[in-house]
């Protein structure tokens, strides 16, 4: 039973995706039913896994090429896997339910649910994999399914473009990831986590190789968890349907990078340089993204930048060695960020796809259920004492306090900004007056949408407490969450920056109909997108002009005309033209022969 559960969790979404793609895509209700069955089967099996805390491992041979290559499909369940499984299947199940209403009118509903199942399969594959090769394959599959979901409304050019951007940015990171896997593999002779751990000494004897491998692996996380400088795709990915944003671009897929880092932490740990870089990248992402968030007007984009910033915090947590604390924050963040996204989805749904917060206002009266849950999510995210975010952020802050003043300062500043921009969002959208006719007619959505909100709101409150988180994390893992020694100054500082941020935003924005603060640098996201666009265009132009130069100048000019002119004289050139440039080809061929002779028999 124990060994078959992981397979059920992994394969039921795959079965659903395949069935929908092949047979059920003509029937919307059937597709929805299949998808829901699969995700609840996975969720149920995950709950059953919590009946014991032992490590489960099951595997089958996949490729066997003798000593050169031996790969297995292995699934491993330990405490870390259990936490992640619960997040993915739990939030996945809620988002599936919510989507049945949110996507009710959509023509591509069957395709949407098929893609959602495919995503669940790929994500669960990452979580369950016991080796890097398998993880990489599912890592890529997650990229593909995310591509499909972001581009769900592919007739909208912006959605198609966003899907492309996400795919490309992720590819850049994945190359690093693959190189890292190859390095680790070459050094230790294994891709399985257990095997790598056994042979880690072969890698640690060469510190620079170790650092290089660690940084390459980190590249994968930079792409998937949208860290600077590959962060540009995540805000654009908000073009996808809102439930997708909640599931993939807030709670699960983007957290895969953090999960992966926690998994391979034993490889990173011996390299202080790699950890330092990781911490710095995380901290920079956290601060930059939070600054950008303060000046956005689109409700989903504010949440997207907030996600970036919180992911930065988790990565920084890994960098200071507190992977337990990072996983804890990942866990709590998944609930309240999914809540916030689904809440924003409810608002967008009620307001006929209006996403600009300045065209909302006064929603606390017309959408009370959404308002209350949204505020709970906001309070949890900003670190209000007593709610989930406070505990998990505190764990990261504590670890940073012991390790580096710079990281601690950055994290604290991020907390200040978080309190500021989230209060701004709530005040502008839910308080004040309704600024547009649309906003006046806001209404709470049907229960299939509000019930998931309420469940998530409850989880956003309790998921930080030991009675809840402790039982999910298990004794040992939860202990490592709070490994850092307690310093009472840290929570005091955290609460004070929270108060300053919240109060500042409240006084600045209460009752305003226009943004009183205008900082173009933040609003335009530090012009990073523009920089990339010009870089890419420049490179393309360069490549194109180089290849045309090569064609015209070298092939036609130097080789064909030059050589023929020298050897055969002008009269022959005319016949040469008729023959296109066969002589040029033969000349190249001959050169090749000479080079080969030279290389082998010099």
């Amino acid at each position, binding site marked *: 039973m124990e060994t078959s559960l992981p397979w059920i969790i992994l394969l039921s979404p795959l079965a659903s995706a395949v069935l929908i793609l092949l047979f059920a895509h003509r029937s919307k209700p059937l597709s929805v039913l299949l998808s829901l069955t699969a995700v609840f089967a996975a969720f149920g099996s995950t709950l059953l896994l919590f009946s014991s805390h032992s490590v489960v491992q099951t595997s089958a041979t*996949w*490729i*066997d*090429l*003798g000593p*050169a*290559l031996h790969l297995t499909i292995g699934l491993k369940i330990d405490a870390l896997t259990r936490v992640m499984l619960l997040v993915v299947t739990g939030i996945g199940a809620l988002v599936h339910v919510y989507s049945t209403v949110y996507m009710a009118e959509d023509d591509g509903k069957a395709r949407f649910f098929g893609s959602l199942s495919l995503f669940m399969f790929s994500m669960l594959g990452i979580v369950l994999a016991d080796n890097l*090769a398998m993880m*990489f*394959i599912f890592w*890529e*599959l997650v990229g*593909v399914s995310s591509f499909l979901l972001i581009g769900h409304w*592919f007739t909208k050019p912006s959605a*198609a473009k966003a899907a*492309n951007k996400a795919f490309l940015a992720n*590819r*850049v990171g994945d*190359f690093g990831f*693959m*190189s890292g896997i*190859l390095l680790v*593999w*070459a050094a230790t002779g294994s891709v399985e986590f257990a095997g790598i751990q056994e042979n880690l000494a072969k890698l640690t004897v060469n510190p620079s190789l170790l650092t290089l491998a660690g940084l390459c692996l980190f590249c994968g996380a930079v792409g998937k968890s949208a860290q600077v400088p590959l962060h540009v795709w995540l805000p654009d990915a908000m073009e996808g349907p809102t439930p997708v944003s909640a599931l993939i671009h807030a709670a699960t897929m983007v957290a895969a990078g953090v999960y992966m880092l926690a998994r391979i932490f034993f490889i990173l740990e011996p390299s202080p340089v790699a950890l330092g870089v990781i911490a710095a990248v995380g901290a920079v992402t956290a601060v930059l993204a939070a600054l950008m968030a303060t000046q956005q007007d689109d409700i989903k984009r504010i949440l997207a930048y907030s996600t970036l910033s919180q992911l930065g915090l988790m990565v920084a947590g890994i960098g200071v060695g507190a992977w337990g604390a990072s996983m804890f924050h990942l866990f709590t963040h998944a609930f309240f960020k999914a809540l916030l996204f689904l809440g924003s989805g409810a608002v967008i749904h009620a307001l006929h796809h209006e996403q600009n917060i300045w065209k909302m206002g006064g929603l606390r009266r017309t959408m009370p259920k959404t308002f209350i849950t949204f505020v709970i999510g906001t309070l949890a995210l900003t670190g209000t004492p007593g709610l989930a975010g406070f505990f998990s952020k505190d764990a990261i802050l504590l670890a940073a306090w012991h390790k580096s003043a710079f990281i601690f300062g950055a994290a604290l500043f991020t907390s200040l900004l978080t309190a500021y921009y989230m209060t701004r969002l709530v005040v502008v959208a839910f308080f004040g007056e309704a600024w547009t006719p649309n906003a006046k007619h806001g209404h709470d959505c049907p229960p299939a949408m509000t019930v998931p909100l309420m469940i998530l709101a409850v989880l956003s409150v309790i998921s930080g407490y030991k009675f809840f988180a402790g039982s999910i994390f298990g004794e040992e893992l939860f202990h490592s969450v709070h490994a850092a020694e307690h310093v009472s100054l840290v929570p005091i500082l955290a609460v004070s920056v929270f108060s300053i941020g919240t109060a500042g935003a409240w006084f600045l924005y209460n009752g305003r109909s226009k943004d009183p603060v205008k900082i173009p640098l933040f609003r335009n996201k530090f012009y990073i997108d523009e920089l990339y666009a010009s870089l890419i265009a420049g490179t393309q132009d360069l*490549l*194109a002009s180089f*290849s*045309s130069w090569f064609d015209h100048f070298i092939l036609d000019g130097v080789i064909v005309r030059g050589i023929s002119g020298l050897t055969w004289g002008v009269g022959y050139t005319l016949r040469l033209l008729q*023959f*296109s440039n*066969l002589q*040029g*080809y*033969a000349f*190249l*061929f001959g*050169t*090749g*022969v000479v*080079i*080969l*002779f030279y*290389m*082998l*028999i010099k």
Partner: protein
Amino acid sequence: MFPPITLEILVLALGFILLLAESFSQSTSKRSLAKSAVFCLAWIFALSFFVTSAPANPEPGSFWNFYSADPVSMVFKRIALLTTMAVLVMALEYEKVLAKNIPSAREGAGTGEFFILPLFTCSGLMLLASAVDLVMAFAALELVTISFYVMVAYMRGSHASLEAGVKYLILGALSTGFFVYGITWIFGLTGETHFTKIALKLASLQGSDTAILFALVLVLVGLGFKVAAVPFQSWVPDVYQGAPTPVTAFLSVGSKAAGFLLLLRVLEPFLGVASIAHKILLVLSVLAGATLIFGNLAALPQNNLKRLLAYSSVGHAGYLLMAVACVGVAPSALGSVGATVGFYLFAYLLMTLLSFLVLTIATQHTKGEEIQHFNGLSKRSPFLAFALLVAMSSLAGVPLTAGFYGKFLVFAQAVNASQWTLIALGTVTVGAGFYFYLRVVAAMYWAEPADASPIQVSGLSKMIIVLLVAGIFVFGVNPKPVLSAFQTQQTPLASAH
């Protein structure tokens, strides 16, 4: 049970019978020729499972000194048969274009041989798979090449096809010259033409490294041309673009497979000479690196899909050479490299045939082979667009496709052999590959079609396309059956050790 050579004889006989039938037939449509060829090849394929094996220790002077039929060569034979069937189906789709480009007095005249010539290529490929002697290998290789000369230049009315034919013929003859010269050198050095005996003699030769290397260069030049390795690749873009599309497909699959098969066989004896082995591996690495760079980077600015596939063919030769360059000196390593090359060739075959089949069908409706002509194909025929999406993803190496596994295995070999430069190069070129393959996908799915009329696909082509797509996914998820088919590679040298 039959002796294995029966298969080649049957294919040849089929070719001659169909040629005769063609010349005496009154019918203007030659389609039945292709259909009966496919049907008979299917029977021969079935027969291939009922052949006896070759004797382990043949008598001196007997036929079995030239020809062996180990399990791996049987796999190659079957693949050659299946490929030929797919090419013939493609040729059926291509019939209209063909008829337009062949000036003839009577309707349909001069198109019949186009459906029969691939059979001779097929028998050449099958013989090559079994050749254990340089003379046999050379004869088989020329049977393949000469039938290709005819097929490339087949469209007499098309300037591009004729030009491609001339280029291929002249450069091909040049490379054949080098290859034969290499064989004579080897014979001069060792007095043998049998691979096993050459290996034994070469290993015991003292102080003639330069002469051995000289022979090797000549052979490498000849085979480098066949597999389209840089700097012997210059013919590829023009010939691929100019030749009739089914021939291009056959050329990129068949010629490449033949070249690599022979390359591995020929290299084996030379790698047994310890004093020069490292030099050979260095040269192979350089060739692989240059081929990777040229094939993938030159493909970036291409706008013609057929030409793009030509550069992609060069690029894939680069990955295959990368695997070959990882051959260790120990024969056991050769076995796993052989399996890797075999799998890669098989995956390449699936995705290339698929691309060209879709290309053949689609271009008759799109009136062009430029990438922009494929704009909005997903709206005109979701089936073809999806098939091409699968082919392009597999060529680019998206996980869970056969193409990914091929690349994965190649990189695994490179890691094993610590070929760091090649791995770095390979990583960059895979990235470039994603860019130019996915451009095609973007055009099909995100651009608006100029003409939105739907495209119909015939039943036979549909079946082949479905099989190829299924193959790409099935062997992408579970590569085991193909790998183990190639893995029992007991090359003559390995058994002699």
